[in-house]
């Protein structure tokens, strides 16, 4: 299979010199997160409180969604419900059409990425401009975000410079981030002026007040929301918290876990529309009820999309977000992805060493490694098997179950010449890009522990 994580990550490692740089860039976020953690005395209790709040909210999710809708309606918002990605796209397009909106400014929303909103709207003749700088960069390059918080983390400034030069006529070769950001600001300002409508994602929905909360560092969501007459907030149905008291816990955790900031620069609470403004909230399911219905996997719905599991993941840092071939990459992405296609995403739960670092940074304490392990068991049952792997496992397990076979293999193993064990026929002896051995199989000792012990007994 060409597009598997193993192949894509190999490409990322061997065909680019960026692996170490990418690794360091993400580790920088993890290190900043650790510093923020240290400023809070009962950090671990904050995490367990957050997990408990999410579990409580999920256990009454239908009630909270109804409360949220009632309050939002009372505040003058319009509320829509989308069963799946197609319905989100259709609702969005129809709102835009009803309001004669042709062009849209959109702030970061992994949900709309997941639902393929941009390509659909473009096909339907709308202009869509992503206004988060990272998302704008990947949009201009016709790529997808490689990380949910820092979408362009896979790109070096020289690549951004080339893209901007081509698309926005910035100076050729000027890769100064300050210069490039200023250029994007200027260009996006024009897009803000031109746009007829604004779309945002949602970080939290507050059931008891009907407010939607959007967190950004750039202020790009607000630039659109407060300047347009048609506003759409797309919210995954798991985003609810009961009230402000609970919201406090999450605003303390989100940015600290994500980028190591004590809070995002802007935490905007949209409750009532401005006069003459039509403000819509679309509550989106798109397979979330499937995750919800599975008792083992429901905890994955606690996720607040902070990206901490990606930043700490030693595999993600070295393989890049695109190697996960799913909207949300990294550990949480690999837990969610099979719900969106078991066959096409069956490799992802295996793209991990199950080291468990993600579990420990997760602000809502999702047992990510445990869920990946569970998926592995399910996927070998429920998807087409990798025959050679299955066979080797069958052979291995039968040997390790039978003393007779184990004894025979012990003897046979010692007849295999070292040259063969250390040759390319042994998959352990991985080769690097230069064809040089990258890992060598150990020398096999003359006697096993069992044989030695037998002698010792005599």
């Amino acid at each position, binding site marked *: 299979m060409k597009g598997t994580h193993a192949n894509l990550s190999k490409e990322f490692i061997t065909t680019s010199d960026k692996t170490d740089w990418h690794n360091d860039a993400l580790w920088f976020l993890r290190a900043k997160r650790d510093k923020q953690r240290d400023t809070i005395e009962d950090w671990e209790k904050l995490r367990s409180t957050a997990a408990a709040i999410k579990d409580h909210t999920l256990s009454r999710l239908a009630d909270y969604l109804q409360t949220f809708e009632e309050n939002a309606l009372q505040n003058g918002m319009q509320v829509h419900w989308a069963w799946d990605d197609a319905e989100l796209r259709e609702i969005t397009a129809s709102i835009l059409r009803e309001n004669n909106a042709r062009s849209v400014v959109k702030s970061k929303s992994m949900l709309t990425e997941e639902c393929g909103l941009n390509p659909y709207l473009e096909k339907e003749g709308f202009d869509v401009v992503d206004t988060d700088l990272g998302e704008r960069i990947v949009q201009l390059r016709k790529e997808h975000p490689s990380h949910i918080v820092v979408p362009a983390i896979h790109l070096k400034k020289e690549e951004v410079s080339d893209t901007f030069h081509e698309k926005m006529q910035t100076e050729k070769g000027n890769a100064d981030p300050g210069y490039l*950001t200023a250029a994007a600001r200027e260009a996006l300002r024009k897009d803000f002026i031109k746009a007829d409508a604004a779309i945002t994602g949602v970080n939290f929905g507050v059931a008891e007040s009907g407010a939607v909360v959007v967190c950004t560092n750039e202020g790009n969501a607000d630039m659109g929301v407060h300047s347009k007459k048609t506003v759409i907030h797309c919210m995954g149905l798991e985003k609810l918290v009961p009230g402000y008291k609970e919201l406090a816990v999450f605003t303390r955790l989100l940015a600290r876990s994500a980028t190591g900031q004590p809070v995002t620069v802007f935490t905007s609470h949209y409750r009532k529309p*401005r006069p003459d403004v039509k403000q819509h909230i679309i509550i989106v399911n798109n397979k979330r009820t499937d995750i919800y219905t599975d008792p083992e996997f429901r905890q994955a719905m606690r996720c607040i999309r902070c990206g901490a599991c990606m930043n700490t993941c030693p595999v993600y840092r070295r393989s890049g977000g695109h190697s996960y071939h799913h909207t949300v990459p990294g550990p949480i992405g690999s837990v969610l992805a099979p719900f969106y296609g078991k066959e096409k995403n069956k490799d992802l739960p295996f793209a991990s060493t199950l080291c468990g670092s993600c579990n420990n940074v997760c602000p809502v304490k999702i047992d990510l490694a445990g869920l990946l392990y569970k998926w592995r068991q399910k996927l070998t049952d429920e998807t087409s098997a990798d025959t050679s792997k299955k066979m080797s496992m069958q052979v291995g397990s039968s040997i390790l179950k039978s003393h007779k076979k184990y004894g025979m293999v012990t003897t046979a193993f010692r007849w295999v010449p070292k040259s063969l064990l250390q040759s390319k026929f042994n998959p352990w002896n991985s080769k690097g890009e230069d064809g040089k051995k990258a890992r060598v199989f150990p020398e096999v000792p003359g006697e096993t522990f069992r044989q030695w012990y037998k002698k010792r007994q005599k």
Partner: protein
Amino acid sequence: MNSKEKILDSLKKACGDPLPRPEIDLLYDKTALVEEYVRTAEASGTEVFLGEEENITGIITQWSEGQKIQSSVPRLREKYPLVFDEDMPFDQDNIPGVFVAEASFGVVENAALWFTDEELTSRLLAFIPEKLIILLSRNHLVATMHEAYARIEEGKTFGFGLFMAGPSKTADIEQTLVKGAQGAKELAVILY
């Protein structure tokens, strides 16, 4: 069944027994220290002036370096009249060079300042000017977000509420921090 009914129905069928709403019982130092606020604010890229009621306008004038100042603060409106027109939000003559507002309160742990429609008058004013000056009373500091939201809950309901912690920024290009991504490029707080 429409989508709403389908969603609610699926959730209700699977939800199981409701879990109790957890107590939020977390440790934090409830003293809101000015020095600590200054530290977190400066770390967020905010310039902090320790002022007194009497020298507020002096600081504003000096920091504004001759740019057009508009203010939503009632006691400053006469001196810095607010002419921003929400219907022409991007009109250059309309946008203040410097916008002066008063925060409802500030949060020590993360330097977040709370505003609602009442303090901002126009929501966009918190984002569109290049420079912001925010007045913050030393008596209006709370230690953490827990107290902040308790205060929000006790206060008047709002249409739009905003925590702002520093000038707009991005690190989307190679993790290099750049101030002034979309919103204000500079933010000053006068703590009085």
